[in-house]
């Protein structure tokens, strides 16, 4: 079993599906000879040729529109947005078309496709290269929105995304692309697209997060454990549809919940989770919910970005505040 980092697991998943299904193809800017600016598609051009690993002209509207057309006509395109900040010109085709072909034609035409989006801050990148914009997609019916946080989940979720009969927005936390390696069997086993993962058990407080912040949450849990606090850490992994059952069950047990995400707080996807708790877990909560998030500003250029992203300290402080309020 190879030990791979998150981004290598993605490459492995794409190669697996391209081998299994000749309709799967990859398109985007620099995905070909260059293997992607993050190297996610490295080697694919050599293995599968330039008709299956396609460099497009430099236009995101084009990439999205071609992807929709290819998909509706029976291909299984995996489109790459080079960075999170360049995805906006794709929204029109995604929202007005990809997400709607099935319902618009009552199932006559469908749009199975994956849009891969390297996501989030913390890599000292230039302007527009560090956006946490998942909330642009989580209110859109017909889409699935996925974000893995480990090599193993990256492999299994990307396989599932490619095989899914509907469009999947696949966010990739670029800050942890190469954080660590893990043994991942290239066995073609997909993971479900509607399941949250409990990464750590605990009885006192639930930390709910996704993407790169899983790292900070696990570290915060570790710190809190040192102080005798049992923290359950949940990686949401599939934001739409949301597996709220797992979160509900955890909060039923712990009675306390802190939600952590990189995106700005107001209108972020954390709100949906807090809202579900307000609807369904009110009688289980021993203390108010808290959100530890990016501030309600654009993420600053990289000199200040670490002051923007939720830190282990901020998470620990929120957890302690929550514990104090319920004791």
């Amino acid at each position, binding site marked *: 079993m190879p030990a791979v980092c998150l981004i290598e697991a993605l490459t492995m998943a794409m190669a697996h599906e391209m081998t299994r299904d000749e309709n799967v193809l990859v398109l985007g800017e620099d995905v070909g000879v260059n293997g992607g600016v993050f190297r996610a598609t490295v080697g694919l051009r050599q293995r599968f040729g330039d008709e299956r690993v396609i460099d497009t002209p430099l236009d995101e509207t084009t990439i999205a529109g071609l992807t929709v057309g290819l998909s509706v006509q029976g291909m299984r395109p995996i489109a790459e947005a080079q960075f999170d900040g360049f995805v906006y010109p794709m929204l029109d085709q995604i929202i007005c078309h990809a997400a709607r072909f099935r*319902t618009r034609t009552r199932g006559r035409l469908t749009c199975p496709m994956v849009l891969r989006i390297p996501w989030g801050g913390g890599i000292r990148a230039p302007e527009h290269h560090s956006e946490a914009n998942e909330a642009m997609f989580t209110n859109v019916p017909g889409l699935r929105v996925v974000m893995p946080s480990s090599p193993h989940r990256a492999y299994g979720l990307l396989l599932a995304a490619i095989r899914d009969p509907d469009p999947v927005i696949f966010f990739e936390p670029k800050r942890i692309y190469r954080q660590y390696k893990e043994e991942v069997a290239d066995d073609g086993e997909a993971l479900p697209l509607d399941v949250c993962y409990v990464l750590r058990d605990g009885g006192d407080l639930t930390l709910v997060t996704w993407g790169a912040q899983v790292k900070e949450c696990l570290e915060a849990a570790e710190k809190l454990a040192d102080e005798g606090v049992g923290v359950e850490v949940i990686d949401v992994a599939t934001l739409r549809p949301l597996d709220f059952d797992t979160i509900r069950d955890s909060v039923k047990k712990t009675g306390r919940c802190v939600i952590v995400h990189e995106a700005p707080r107001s209108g972020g996807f954390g709100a949906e989770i807090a809202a579900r708790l307000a609807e369904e877990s009110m009688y289980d909560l021993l203390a108010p919910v808290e959100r530890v998030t990016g501030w309600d500003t654009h993420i600053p250029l990289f000199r200040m970005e670490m002051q923007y992203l939720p830190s282990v300290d901020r998470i620990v402080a929120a957890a302690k505040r929550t514990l104090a309020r319920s004791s």
Partner: protein
Amino acid sequence: MRTLGMSVAASFSIEYLSYLGADGKPGDEPWPEVAKDAKRLLELYKLMLFTRSFDSKAVALQRTGKLGTYASCLGHEAAHVGIAAAMHVDDVMAVSYREIGAMLLRGVLPREILLYWGGDERGSKFSGPQQDFPICVPIATQCLHAAGTALAFKLRKEPRVAVAFCGDGGSSKTDFYAALNAAGAFQLPLVLVVVNNQWAISVPRSAQTGAQTLAQKGLAGGLDCVQVDGNDLVAVFSAADHAVRRARNGHGGTVIEAVTYRLSDHTTADDARRYRDEAEVKAAWEREPLLRLRHYLQAGGLWDEGKENAYKDACAKRVDEEVNAYLDVAPPPLSDMFEYTYAEPPLDLLAQRAEVLAGGKR
């Protein structure tokens, strides 16, 4: 090496094609082979007549509250039918919302078109080539769907062609430019048809662009470009046939600008008298596509007054049948709202469906 100073890097010219005059008389130049089959022209004429019959009925249905907003195709019959006529059945067509004649030619049923404009998704689960795209409201976005389709054909090495329509307004839309750029970059079997009917709702052609022709926009992507008299079925059909063949043979994409006129309001929700001159409309009626073709067919002995009247009656009857069939379609079950968002509705959605089916009480 190039010599220093000024030199010419590239040069182009855009052809204009017209074969059948507004008076129904052909010019001196010989017609392209494909347009010489008078029986075929007659068939297409009959479809144009039927289209007009359907169209006026649809407008009437809207006026009496039996249809939603509807976009009439009055005056566009040659432009729409002439293009679709050049396609193979397994080519793929991507329309905007006005190309009734083209959809009918491809086998979409009138009742299905009515169902769509009647606010029912089932209208887009239509008859005819199953890969054809449904009506597309966001302007020119269908051009990119057609480009993606053409790319699929090219990758799968299928000898098929994708054809997309948009309007003069649509030719300003970035999606149109993106499609022609992609067509050139990948040398796609794509035909982009700009139906220039002079108006985009209230905005005249002159306000859309500084380009002398809309056809020349194709030069931006290195495509073939041609402008045709869009009221001349012969010119439209010939140009489309040429472009489709060229695409099928691997020689790449074409932009066809079909110059015509929107004789109706933009849609039934519009009142064109607010912004355009009645005189302009009147003048445009002199050039409309049906009459000239009828004259031509009559001159050739293939058609006459009696046949015209009989066929018109037949059209009206068929349209009525279709309207009745449309009006008979019961509303979809409530549950339909939830069935088609995903292949497998997620749990959340199943719960919402249950709520609704339990009486919409939540």
